[in-house]
């Protein structure tokens, strides 16, 4: 067996204190743990259940736990308000260092943005899109509330070290084709369970040329093919991003997959051949070139979410719209992913542009993505969204239809009132 390791095997070897390879079961030390207003309350209950016989009911490390509210912001029901109260009390009692109330934004944006995730770390979050932290070269993975309760108590958790599928994406993306189109294409090819139990590793020129915003989009959606993580080897782009957020950070140059590392599969793509992609109802792997669904009438466009709610995404959308109004009969909801991103959007004059175009611009949160809060679709309605899931009933009625696409495609469609190729407007 080769001694060459994947980046994932290296991270687990460090976190479990012994050399491990894919297939090994380990108890690994957790570097950072994130929870939010949906899955947090159950984790807190679980934690106190674990500690019920202990006099000192203290979490393992209050500096390494991050709690924030993003799914139901501001509280949209009495139960949501009660859950917020429960988590505020927990954060206070446990002296949680990084507790973000209503103000800060979506977990997967805030975590890297505030420097809570560093390359090479093992980070867990009780949210399936925690795989987004692979964009900064961390092994980020989603866990449930009981898993999180155990992490609060122990600071470690069991894992099976995953095999890796490596996606080599070379070439240059065409005009108005983005990382969202790359990831939708990969998911469509591999299928909803094609990377089940595995780490997805994205490599190649096309990936290396992406800025951090576009990398986050691609890592974010690894879970949509069943992936446990969506990791991109950290490079100069990563280092520059992390340095601005974590003083004195120095990148370990060895933090990459070795040449002879073993993969369960290597898949190669040419970014130059890629068209804008759309995921059709009701599965994320139901992906087609935009041309196949062009002209489909839509009722609502949602531009936002942890997948595509950053300044760069909104700027791209505004450029495509170029001052043209949202089509009559179409609702457009725009939500920057975090306070920081909101302020950038605001200063660049984009809030005004979107408002003048007839869109609603909401304060930072997950918005309609999870279908728990506002902006829901009614029976028979068609929504186009830059978020990550189009499951039946995900954004409201089970009789609604959700299509997923890039911010550029969403913007072009908003002004046309139907699904449109962003290169055609």
């Amino acid at each position, binding site marked *: 067996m080769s001694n060459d390791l994947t980046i994932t095997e290296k991270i687990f070897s460090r976190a479990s204190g012994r050399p491990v390879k894919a297939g090994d079961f380990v108890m690994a030390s957790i570097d950072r743990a994130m929870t939010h207003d949906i899955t947090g309350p159950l984790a807190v209950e679980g934690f106190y259940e674990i500690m019920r016989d202990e006099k000192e009911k203290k979490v393992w490390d209050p500096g390494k736990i991050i709690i924030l509210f993003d799914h139901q912001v501001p509280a949209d029901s009495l139960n949501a308000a009660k859950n917020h109260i429960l988590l505020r009390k927990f954060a206070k009692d446990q002296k949680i260092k990084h507790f973000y109330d209503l103000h800060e934004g979506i977990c997967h944006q805030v975590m890297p943005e505030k420097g809570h995730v560093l390359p090479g770390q093992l980070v867990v979050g009780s949210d*399936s899109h925690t795989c987004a932290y692979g964009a900064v070269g961390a092994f980020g993975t989603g866990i449930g509330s009981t898993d999180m309760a155990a992490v609060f108590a122990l600071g470690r958790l069991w894992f099976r070290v995953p095999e890796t599928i490596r996606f080599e994406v070379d070439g240059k993306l065409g005009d108005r084709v983005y990382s969202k189109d790359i990831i939708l294409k990969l998911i469509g090819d591999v299928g909803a369970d094609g990377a089940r139990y595995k780490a997805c590793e994205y490599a190649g020129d096309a990936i290396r040329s992406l800025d951090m915003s576009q990398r986050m989009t691609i890592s974010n959606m690894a879970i949509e093919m069943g992936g446990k993580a969506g990791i991109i080897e950290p490079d100069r782009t990563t280092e520059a991003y992390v340095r601005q957020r974590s003083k004195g950070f120095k990148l370990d140059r060895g933090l990459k997959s070795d040449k002879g590392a073993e993969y369960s599969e290597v898949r190669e793509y040419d970014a130059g051949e890629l068209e804008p992609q759309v995921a059709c109802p009701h*599965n994320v792997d139901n992906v087609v070139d935009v041309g196949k669904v062009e002209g489909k009438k839509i009722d609502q466009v949602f531009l936002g979410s942890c997948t595509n709610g950053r300044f760069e995404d909104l700027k791209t959308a505004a450029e495509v719209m170029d001052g043209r109004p949202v089509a009559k009969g179409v609702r457009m909801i725009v939500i920057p992913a975090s306070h920081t991103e909101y302020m950038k959007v605001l200063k660049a004059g984009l809030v005004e542009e979107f408002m003048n175009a007839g869109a609603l611009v909401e304060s930072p949160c997950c918005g309609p993505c999870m279908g728990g809060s506002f902006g829901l679709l009614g029976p028979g309605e068609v929504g186009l969204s830059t978020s990550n899931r189009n499951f*039946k009933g995900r954004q409201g009625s089970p009789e609604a239809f959700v299509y997923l696409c890039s911010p550029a495609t969403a913007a072009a469609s908003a002004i046309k009132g139907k699904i449109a190729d962003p290169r055609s407007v």
Partner: protein
Amino acid sequence: MARKTTKKTVVENRRELSRAWKFGDDVDTDAIIPGRFLIINDAKELAKHAFEGVRPDFRPSPGDVVVAGENFGCGSSREHAPLALKGAGIKCVIAKSFARIFFRNSVNIGLPMLECEDAGRISDGDVLEVEGDVIRNLTKGETYRTAPLPEFLEEIVRAGGLIEYAREIVAKEHKK
């Protein structure tokens, strides 16, 4: 029939007839429990809304089982999904394969997940008897085997779930 104690892992050796509630491939967590109900933390309350959007007739009796194809439970990390099934009295889920986080969550809360390549042979409404790692389909007169849990996970299940497993570790470490 003598069984190793570790086999309680999966399903208790209690004679009980179960009705199969059959689903297809890629059953996602939004289908199991839609997002608007995640403000509820109680299993019994969640159970009232299980499969509400996609299968409104889902009204299982205690001991019934959910049967599905590939990738059951894909999507969200919401533990509300296995909790809703547990709250509805579902004895276990039998599927060809499970999504990763859902599988973990179920092990952690003690809802058995049985991986079975013959899951596709079971039809909606079939009467089953699930005992240990054997599934008897009384409607069709067939018997299926389920894949064993990895040994590492059996340890957690033997402890009574992740909460108990973690309690044991905390107790040991505080004695030191």
